[in-house]
């Protein structure tokens, strides 16, 4: 479909911007919750709420904001009526997430139903609109297939999540509850987030750092391999634990292969300028490798689950999202001002001082390391210290993005 190539294909800046600016605010809320928390086990209601401030409030917010902007460029798939779609999605996510969290804090069952309905509206509505456009794309690349498959896994993960939520609401925690929970986070992490990030990486790393392209075979192994393995994961969870071990080993191979090829291409990039976004990308891949090894050995050494969530969630995913927004927001600020005939405006580089990005990068890394060891040895003081640094890091992240957004506002 080539109808996407028109002047109005880029959504108005305000449509994705509010998703990008809200994400660090939810990370700050998650940090505050950890700071004042007394429970640090993954299945405690308090930590479930905190985790969803990161997965829905931070990650899904950024992904939905970025997809509005990227789909027209990557696939010519234009989101129709972008402001209306953005508003419905955004407010449903906000209401859904807040009712979800309060529901878990006070264990008020009616709030579980409210969040189930509003999250369903926000997530399914946006995915349906995006998928309807993506399916129409002719000559789909592996990147487009990767995005489609990742969104399908988000739908599956979402319904599993709703099932888990309703189980809490009806106090009907079955013997399969934790199996469904395992499938839920496998689908969210590998099926949705990993596949989406891999697909976007195939496109953006060669483009923005002038590196070698990801070969078709490399893309095929990662996208098709992950999808097949997740189908195998369903069977393994409900049949035989030994099959789940095989799934873990092969999936680890795919994760390590992706991390290795990305690091190799970034290391050999032709564009060698000092750029903290590259540091965020490298860190993300290193945390993916560390997380994968931890995942492999955690059962052998009877290690807890929480440090794995730190390595994968904060280390791999948040590092990558954080770095990418430092490119996306300044570029969109420049692009939208320039498109409106404003030529005397700062360049991308001048919008957020690199010294501020550098400070935030180190705060982010230090908070992850402290969180990891805090949860590993179960040392509350370390977790509290990590929470404080995490809050400062995300406050600075928010202010940095706001700086760029304000340039747009003042130059309009």
């Amino acid at each position, binding site marked *: 479909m*080539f*109808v*996407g*190539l*028109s*002047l109005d*294909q880029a959504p108005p800046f305000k449509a994705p911007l509010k998703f990008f600016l809200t994400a660090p605010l939810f990370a700050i809320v998650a940090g505050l919750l950890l700071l004042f928390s007394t429970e640090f086990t993954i299945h405690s209601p308090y930590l479930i709420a905190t985790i969803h401030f990161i997965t829905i409030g931070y990650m899904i917010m950024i992904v939905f904001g970025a997809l509005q902007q990227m789909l027209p*460029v*990557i*696939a*010519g798939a234009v989101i129709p009526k972008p402001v209306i779609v953005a508003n419905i999605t955004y407010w449903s996510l906000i209401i859904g997430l807040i009712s979800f969290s309060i529901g878990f804090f006070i264990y008020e069952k009616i709030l579980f139903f409210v969040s189930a309905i509003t999250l369903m509206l926000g997530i399914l509505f946006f995915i349906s609109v995006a998928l309807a456009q993506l399916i129409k794309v002719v*000559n789909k*690349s592996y990147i487009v297939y990767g995005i489609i498959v990742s969104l399908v896994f988000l739908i599956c993960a979402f319904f599993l999540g709703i099932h888990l939520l309703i189980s809490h609401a009806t106090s009907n925690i079955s013997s399969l509850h934790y199996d469904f929970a395992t499938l839920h986070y496998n689908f969210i992490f590998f099926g949705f987030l990993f596949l989406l990030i891999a697909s976007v990486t195939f*496109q953006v790393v060669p*483009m*923005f750092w*002038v590196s070698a392209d990801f070969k078709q075979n490399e893309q095929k192994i990662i996208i098709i391999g992950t999808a097949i393995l997740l189908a195998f994961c369903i069977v393994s969870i409900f049949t035989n634990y030994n099959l789940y071990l095989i799934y873990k080993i092969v999936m680890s191979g795919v994760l390590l292969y992706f991390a290795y090829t990305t690091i190799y291409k970034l290391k050999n*990039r*032709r*564009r*060698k*300028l*000092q750029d903290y976004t590259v540091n965020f990308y490298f860190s993300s891949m290193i945390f993916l490798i560390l997380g994968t090894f931890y995942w492999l050995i955690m059962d052998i050494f009877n290690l807890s689950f929480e440090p794995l969530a730190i390595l994968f969630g904060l280390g791999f995913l948040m590092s990558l999202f954080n770095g990418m927004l430092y*490119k996306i927001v300044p*570029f969109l600020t*420049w*692009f939208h001002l*320039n*498109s409106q005939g404003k*030529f005397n405006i*700062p*360049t*991308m*580089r*001048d919008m957020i001082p690199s010294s501020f990005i550098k400070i935030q990068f180190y705060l982010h890394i230090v908070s992850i390391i402290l969180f990891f060891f805090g949860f590993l040895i179960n040392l509350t003081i370390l977790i509290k210290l990590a929470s404080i640094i995490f809050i400062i890091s995300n406050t600075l992240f928010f202010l940095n993005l706001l700086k760029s957004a304000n340039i747009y506002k003042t130059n309009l």
Partner: protein
Amino acid sequence: MTITQFMTEDHRACDEQFAQLENIVDQGNFDGGKIMWEEFHAHMLKHFDMEEKVMFPQFSETGGGHCDPTQVMIMEHDQMRQLFSQMQTAIDANDKNGFLGASETLLFTMQQHNMKEEQMMYTMADDTLDSSKIVEEMQAL
């Protein structure tokens, strides 16, 4: 050779020159940087000419498929021409930060533009035009 293959290869060659140019300016080597800048700038303008003087007019004559995206492509070329002018001013003044600020903005503008061309514009042109004739005419410029 198809239009997509020929022009995509030319994009990659421009990317390569761009990366070398930025690296050399980043090292503070303005003498070498000015030579590379001239080469890169000339290459980019030739690439625009191939599209604006050969491919786009012939594509528009066919009715442009369901819509005619060439006007958007030309508008984005103009955005890049403004950035070339900022880069020219900066390199003439040996202003490293000014140059790298404009060049990074150019890279993003250029890459999202290239992506649209490679995934959509060139495919449409290959579908509607005599590809080998267009490539020959573009090479002859």
